[in-house]
């Protein structure tokens, strides 16, 4: 009934003998130099460089480890020791999309366990396994700081809030079919694993201005304060009030709500989708 296997299996790093092409090496060198320049000491560049390796190879390869080691004057063992410590670094080829279901206590109880069981059965794969088409790698993830939107799912670390087994199955189907998928709080589309890894290496993808500032749950307290006329002492709108219009805000939310503009994404993590199926 409950899956008690360890959350992250300890699989060894896969070696890769195939050398980088000259072109790849030139780009890796240029990007790594840019990363190293951000820090007073170059070893600090290691974590972003491992994200960079994943943006090229799709996981942390043996050749990637060697590249980082040479660049930072470390041993391969030192780099592997770091790469195997962190769960975001993959030890074998990853799908184009990592889909993570939060199964930490709060989300699990609010429905994360049911979502996990359903999507795992739907795809026929377990934790840290990838669909045969190479599209989706499934993971059980720990609390992702979105508990007020429980149960939550992540696709390449974009937020899908207030999910259900049905909306999660639709999400993975859409990802596999290549349909446009829009996170609840994030850019207008989900980037690939490699693109996302490049962003985490510190190379902006220009998507920061997409998506809402805050989702509905983040605004509950503020909304109530507006309704009751509560403001912080001495705040500019304590007297008079240039309330940043709840109406205006809800208008904006409407626009930004995932699924409202694109039919293919209907129901992915929208509060509406969840509420429609809610049962107290």
């Amino acid at each position, binding site marked *: 009934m409950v899956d008690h296997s360890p959350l992250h299996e300890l699989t060894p790093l896969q070696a890769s003998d195939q050398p980088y092409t000259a072109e790849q090496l030139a780009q890796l060198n240029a990007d790594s130099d840019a990363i190293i320049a951000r820090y007073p000491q170059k070893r600090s560049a290691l974590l972003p460089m491992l994200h960079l390796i994943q943006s090229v190879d799709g996981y942390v390869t043996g050749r990637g480890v060697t590249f980082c080691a040479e660049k930072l004057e470390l041993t391969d063992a030192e780099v592997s020791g770091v790469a195997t*410590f962190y769960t975001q670094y993959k030890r074998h080829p990853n799908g184009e999309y990592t889909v993570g279901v939060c199964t*930490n206590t709060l989300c699990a109880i609010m*429905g994360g366990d049911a979502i996990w069981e359903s999507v795992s059965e739907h795809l026929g794969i377990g934790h840290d396994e990838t669909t045969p088409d190479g599209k989706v790698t499934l993971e059980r993830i720990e609390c992702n700081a979105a508990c007020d939107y429980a149960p939550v799912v992540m696709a390449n*670390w974009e937020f899908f809030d207030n999910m259900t087994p049905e909306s999660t199955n639709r999400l993975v189907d859409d990802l596999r079919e290549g349909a446009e998928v829009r996170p609840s709080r994030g*850019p207008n589309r989900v980037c690939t694993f490699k693109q996302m890894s490049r962003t985490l*290496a510190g190379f902006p993808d220009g998507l920061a201005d997409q998506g809402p500032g805050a989702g509905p749950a983040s605004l509950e307290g503020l909304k109530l304060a507006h309704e009751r006329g509560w403001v912080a002492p*001495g705040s500019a709108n304590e007297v008079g009030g240039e309330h940043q219009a709840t109406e205006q805000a809800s208008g904006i939310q409407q626009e930004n709500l995932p699924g409202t503009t694109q039919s293919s994404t209907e129901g992915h993590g929208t509060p509406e989708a969840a509420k429609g199926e809610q049962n107290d």
Partner: protein
Amino acid sequence: MTDLTPILTKFWDAAQSWTLQTYLDNEGYQALDKALGMSQEDLVAMAKDSGLRGRGGAGFPTGMKWGFLPKPDGGPRYLVVNADESEPGTCKDIPLMMAAPHFLIEGVAITSYAIGCNHAFIYVRGEVVHVYRRLQKAVEEAYAAGHLGKNIHGTGFDLDVTVHAGAGAYICGEETALLDSLEGRRGQPRLKPPFPAVAGLYARPTVVNNVESIASVPPILLHGADWFKGMGTEKSSGFGIFSLSGHVTRPGQYEAPLGITLRELIDMAGGMRNGHQLKFWTPGGSSTPIFTAEHLDVPLDFESVAAAGSMLGTRALQIFDETVSVVRAVSRWIDFYAHESCGKCTPCREGTFWLKQIMTRLEHGQGTQGDIDTLLDVCDNILGRSFCALGDGATSPVTSAVQYFREEFETGMHTPWWVAFPPERSVLFDTKETVSV
């Protein structure tokens, strides 16, 4: 009745709330101007006077922490912002950085100036890529507008800010593990002393502060220490973001003076979900001992929560109703600690492993007579004997749950939790198995 005080959350509903322009429309970067006209000593004194205490969990006085840095010796000093937010239940820093990242950036500029730092770092967990984008963008905008970079506001003060993405490891939220991780190592805690104030990042004097602590600095500076002290309680001054999750009608972020009660907050959140009763809750994340309905009126400030046997922590209020099995909840938290234990010290590495074995037995209704005593005994051997607070935190849910719900652990000796507490009653969506309740 306590009123909410939207300060850091005040304009989260604005169109494009994350932009520099929105921040400027809301007093943005005025505090930095003011700070740059003050002496460093006065800024540290102001932080001390305000009574601001760390919002990352431990509640250490922020001004005092800044004051611990040794006298300048000509070498670099660092500010490192802890944006690793991973304590289960905690979900305030992430929405803050997504909706209003400039609060943090301005706070970083002011704090850096106050402590004599010219290169600050924001260590954000890697699993929140859109937040990382927003932070990077905010830093970019702040550079372009002259709030960061060389000769800030024409005062000769220089500051670089690097936003650094982690790669998935709860322990990297522990401040010394965070520093090791930022140096490109496995994120494992360091022996203290020396404290980061003396030998932190690259063995140089370093201040590590939580996102919300640093974001609170601009409003305090702008409105004064007395304004801040006018909110909250005598020893827990000011405001904080309270995060409600779980079985309340409207989970979400509620910014209020410290000392507000859960009864008030649940009322604001529309009550418990339809027809259900509060069973147990965490005041400050999974590492803080659980409370029950008895504790609804405990003022949520550092002293009162401690006096009642728990910790204010990160104000991560995870709310569970009567449909939830305590054994199941605790067992899942223990899975988390066992998974996240960094392995550096024996009590935590081995202890969490054993706790997990026993909790799993109890979940399946296969517990043995001595299991409760063994659980408490293992906890006793972890608590106070671990290298860092992760180990201590792992014992909190176990010992507190046994204290309040011992009979459920006894049930675990013959009945699986899913028989005693069918899980479909707890979920927030309909399931095939459920008939409408």
